[in-house]
């Protein structure tokens, strides 16, 4: 069973990796506690996969220190492989094997591990136990990949984009499974470019952009760091040519204003007060508001505030 020591499960310092003339990872520091679910959040190409693959011992960093479970890849690769569970991005397992045969194969690599039947049940693949991989859906394949990562009873689990390309239902099912693994006290490091995934699953999140970590903390801390509160989005008929962002910013409770494709985004401390003021100002200027929405600030808003760009779903 995973250890519950307060030791660090993963320590990364000054990590750097360059491909030809592209700097993929540009000085990354991380510390993941045992028992924690840690997320690397960022857009595609931010360096998440390179970072996680260096931690998995699959890539050599150009510079920096990586310590996994207190061990280094240089001296303890064999031991580390036994103690880690890894799920890579777009691995295609053999189409001609069945689910059970695949899990059994991966089980055979570990000195100690979980019962194949238990892992299949845990990943909700019992009905597909005898099915070949060619007959599986995207969500089922992803759960099988997780089963293969889990069957060695790992102390630390690396999941690289576990839900990319899945439909919302399959994604939610996978989240439930990851929740179950967290309840068992397993340490999980995952990458994602879905902010709601990071918010929902991770105890702490590092936001990556262009190979650097631009923010680090619990989802609540990160949201609080941009002033927390709420976001009011609205658009106006005619694109709001006469609307001055400066005037909007001067409204009560509005902390910042952003204009995006003819849509305004206001960060507000309290929407109860900001919205009536906004509407009153609009009525006064005879500008009809065509759409109005408010939501609690999310990690997406954190990313937008820090980079001026949106995280994008491909």
């Amino acid at each position, binding site marked *: 069973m995973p250890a519950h020591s307060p030791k660090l499960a993963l320590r990364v310092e000054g990590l750097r990796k360059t491909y030809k003339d592209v700097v993929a990872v540009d000085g990354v520091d991380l510390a993941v506690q045992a028992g924690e679910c840690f997320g690397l959040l960022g857009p595609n190409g931010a360096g998440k996969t390179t970072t996680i693959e260096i931690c998995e011992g*699959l890539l050599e960093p150009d510079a920096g220190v990586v310590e996994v479970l207190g061990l280094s890849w240089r001296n303890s690769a064999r031991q580390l492989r036994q103690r880690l569970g890894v799920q890579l991005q777009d691995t295609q397992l053999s189409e001609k094997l069945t689910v059970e*045969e695949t899990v059994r194969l991966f089980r*055979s690599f570990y000195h100690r591990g979980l019962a194949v039947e238990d892992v299949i049940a845990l990943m909700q693949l019992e009905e597909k136990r005898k099915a070949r991989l060619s007959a599986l859906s995207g969500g089922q394949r992803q759960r099988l990949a997780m089963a293969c990562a889990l069957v060695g009873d790992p102390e630390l689990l690396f999941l690289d984009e576990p839900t990319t390309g899945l439909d919302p239902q399959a994604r939610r099912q996978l989240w439930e499974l990851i929740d179950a693994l967290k309840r068992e006290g397993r340490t999980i490091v995952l990458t994602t470019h879905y902010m709601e995934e990071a918010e929902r699953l991770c105890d702490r999140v590092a936001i990556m952009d262009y190979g650097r970590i631009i923010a680090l903390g619990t989802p609540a801390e990160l949201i609080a760091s941009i002033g927390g509160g709420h976001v009011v989005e609205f658009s106006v008929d005619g694109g709001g040519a006469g609307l001055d962002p400066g005037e909007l910013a001067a409204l009560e409770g509005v902390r910042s204003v952003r204009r995006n494709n003819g849509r305004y985004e206001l960060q507000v401390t309290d929407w109860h007060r900001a919205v009536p003021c906004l509407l009153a100002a609009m009525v006064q200027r005879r500008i009809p508001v065509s759409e109005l929405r408010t939501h609690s600030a999310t990690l997406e808003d954190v990313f937008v505030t820090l980079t001026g760009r949106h995280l994008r779903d491909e």
Partner: protein
Amino acid sequence: MSDRAAVLDRPLRAVPLAFRERSLVQLTLVRFREFWREPEAIFWVFIFPILLTAGLGIAFRSGPAQALPIGVTDDGLAAVLQAEPSLSVRRLDARTAEDQLRLGRIHLLVTPEAGGGVRLRYDDTNPESRTAGLLVERALQRAAGVRDRVPVTAEIAREPGSRYIDFVVPGLLGMNLMGSGMWGVGFAIVDARRKRLLKRLVASPMSRAEYLLSFLLSRLVLLLLEVTALVGFGVLAFGVPVNGPVWQLALLCVLASLCFSALGLLIASRTRTIEAASGWMNFVMLPMWVFSGVFFSYERFPEAFHPFIRLLPLTAAIDALRANMLQGAGLEQVAPEVAVMGGWLGLSFFAALALFRWR
């Protein structure tokens, strides 16, 4: 849903590994499963060589020698030549005869010449036409009263071991060992690399040596089946001889298979796409199909080529198999061929290890 909740709530227990669940066993089982579940592979490895053997065996069967068709434009000459049993005489008018000669329906055309002479028209590069020419000439001379000065008795030998089918079965066996060895190892590894499965396996604690060893073990078992199928068919259907010691034949097959598997491994050591792998495979195999004497003896190539041809692994394999099966030669007699195969095996294996990329 309640089952699922129960599984989720139960802490997962670590269990020890049973013997059958050992990784080498599991990896080897995967090799078999991938092979058996690929109908095309079964066709090319088992069915195709047998069909080819059957086809060649029937096409080149040694039945009673067939009479050679010739054309004659004169009734008198036709009557004389009809007495010769090895010739099948067709009485034709001059134009039809010319056409049939061009089309190869007759091997030779006989026309009378002024003054009692006879003109033979045939292509001297065609052995059957030359034979027909000699037969016609002899028949005409005998009919004219010429007697043989030396009495000759012909003894017909159609023993197993000297027919074309006997020649070609060891050739096909060698070709099959080459194809299945190179493709069986090379294709599977390139495919795993292309699908990033190789990378996933390397991220697990799998032993890399066991991964490669699993190819070897599965190859040896499949080898037993494919050699038995092909040689068994040759023996049962055509009476192809296996004169040498069977255990030595088995040893030669294993050596040949390892040698070609190592070549396959070398080709797969860095290749990332199936197309590139196919290109390399054909680049390596095609010259050997032509030069190594699968279907005809490489003696037909100029003598200067022979030392190089004998250095090809397929030539060594086929020569050794023929020596064992047809001449009953022992291992000591095929030592040079064994050395050539061993050399290729060592060279390609160590080169493959040095070049191999797991990613």
